[in-house]
């Protein structure tokens, strides 16, 4: 009997922890189904009127989504900007990192370890250090204020190479050697023998790179001056000031791609070897 009480109380604690993690997100989703009027009424606050906790809509409505999708062409355009930046980054980053990690784990060439050491240092350096060199190069190439200024530096980061090198180390050299003896080409070895064994690593890389670029802020406000080219990660905060009534639906729409890519890969992600 006592044991059962312990188990129940443990589950209650677990539920409370989960609630803390989920609350802001749940709040956003629930609030996205409130009509605009309800939102502005609930959150217009002043010294004698505090905003109150308002989770459950008084009246269920899709007005915010209708407004965001059909009445604000600008919103969809900004959303599309985010896609245009994120998809190339993820694809280039994955392909290049797979190649480089393969080279760094399964081949020997001069200066290999020195070069990899440079990757590790770059992995750690924050954007406030690397952005100055980045900016100078982008300016010299004449790419400022184009989406390429956001895509190129983020596509070539050390992160993917380091992550995939970690998973590729577990691929036994013997299988590769055997395939080579059989006369298998390097590309076939990479794509048919190595890649299936590091699926978890690639999935993690895709998710983390996607999330990171979907959330891009610091590069955008430095490299891009034309606000029409802003991705939603930055532009959304400007909606908060001007278009309060639909902000929750915009947030939910913006969240969906990240959520989908996570759910698609979640099993590999959680079991990835690190």
């Amino acid at each position: 009997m006592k044991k059962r009480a312990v188990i129940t109380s443990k589950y209650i604690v677990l539920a409370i922890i989960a609630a803390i993690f989920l609350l802001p997100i749940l709040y956003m989703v629930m609030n996205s189904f409130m009509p605009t009027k309800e939102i502005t009424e609930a959150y217009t606050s002043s010294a004698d009127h505090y905003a109150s906790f308002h989770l459950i809509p008084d009246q269920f409505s899709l007005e915010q989504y209708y407004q965001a999708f059909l009445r604000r062409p600008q919103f969809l355009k900004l959303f599309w900007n985010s896609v245009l930046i994120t998809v190339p980054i993820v694809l280039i980053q994955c392909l290049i990192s797979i190649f480089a990690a393969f080279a760094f784990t399964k081949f020997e060439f001069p200066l290999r370890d020195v070069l990899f050491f440079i990757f590790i240092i770059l992995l750690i350096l924050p954007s406030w250090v690397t952005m100055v060199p980045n900016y100078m190069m982008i300016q010299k190439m004449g790419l400022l204020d184009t989406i390429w200024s956001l895509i190129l530096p983020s596509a070539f980061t050390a992160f993917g190479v380091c992550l995939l090198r970690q998973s590729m180390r577990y691929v036994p050299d013997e299988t590769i050697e055997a395939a080579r003896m059989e006369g298998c080409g390097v590309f076939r070895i990479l794509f048919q023998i190595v890649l299936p064994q590091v699926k978890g690593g690639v999935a993690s890389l895709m998710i983390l790179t996607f999330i990171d670029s979907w959330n891009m802020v610091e590069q955008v406000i430095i490299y891009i001056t034309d606000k029409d080219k802003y991705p939603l990660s930055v532009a959304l905060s400007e909606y908060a000031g001007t278009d309060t009534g639909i902000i929750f639906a915009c947030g939910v729409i913006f969240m969906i791609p990240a959520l989908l890519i996570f759910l698609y890969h979640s099993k590999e992600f959680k079991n990835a070897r690190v």
Partner: protein
Amino acid sequence: MKLKTKQAWTGIMFALPALIGIFVFYLIPYCISLYYAFTLQNRFVGFSNFVTLMKSETFWLSMKNTTIFALTAIPLAMIIPFLIALFLSTFDKHTGFFRSLFLSPLIIPIASVIYVWQIFFTDYGVVNNLLQKLGLEPVSFFKGPWSMVLVVIIFVWKNCAYNIILFSAGLRKIPKDVREYARLEGASDFTVITRIVIPILRPTTFFVFLLTVISSFKIFREVYLLYGMYPDENIYMIQHYMNNNFNNLNYPRLSAASVILSVFIIIIMLVFFLIERRNDQ
């Protein structure tokens, strides 16, 4: 021998795209900024750019705030997930579902939830409403020292998830009987954790530490979306300092800051790597 050189060339070809990118966007421009750091209007000026930087009060303010943030947020974002992972490991049944739930702050874009934080924490917001009902003084999270508290809360909330996953994976590697045997021998829970669990988890902890440090460098995103380009002086971070110097394109000063900060970070990380290496032996 011939085979070996052929192998080496294949390796180089595979590494080449990544190497070109890293050289073009990071290494070569970094060398250029090293040059800028020691010149002013194309004249070699020695360390004078660094001296000007050291005299700048805003630079030190941003250094101070970034350090305060790192020293509070990083330990919290490691200890709390460790405790949660320990708690999860006491369950007999699967807790995979809960662990996925915990991941959601990481998955959800910052910009999406930022408005919820605003409603909760503005001067007349939900949290202050609650504080008032409890008879406590309302707190200003957007001005004054409490703004740093809010930034730390958001960071911990967001970064706990992945660390829980990593710690849980590490804990699963410890055989259950080891812990049970120690307990049968009369060791208390506390001793089991400090003497058995923590030493075994050291490599995991180091990895978690590294990832948390890297994410702590990205806190600017939240700070920018919440407070804009010119925040309260309590959360004026290095990234703000750099951005404000970008606005007037002060290359000598930016380069000097970039060089000195990277040297600083590399030294700190090397120290940690060496400690970790020595413990390994």
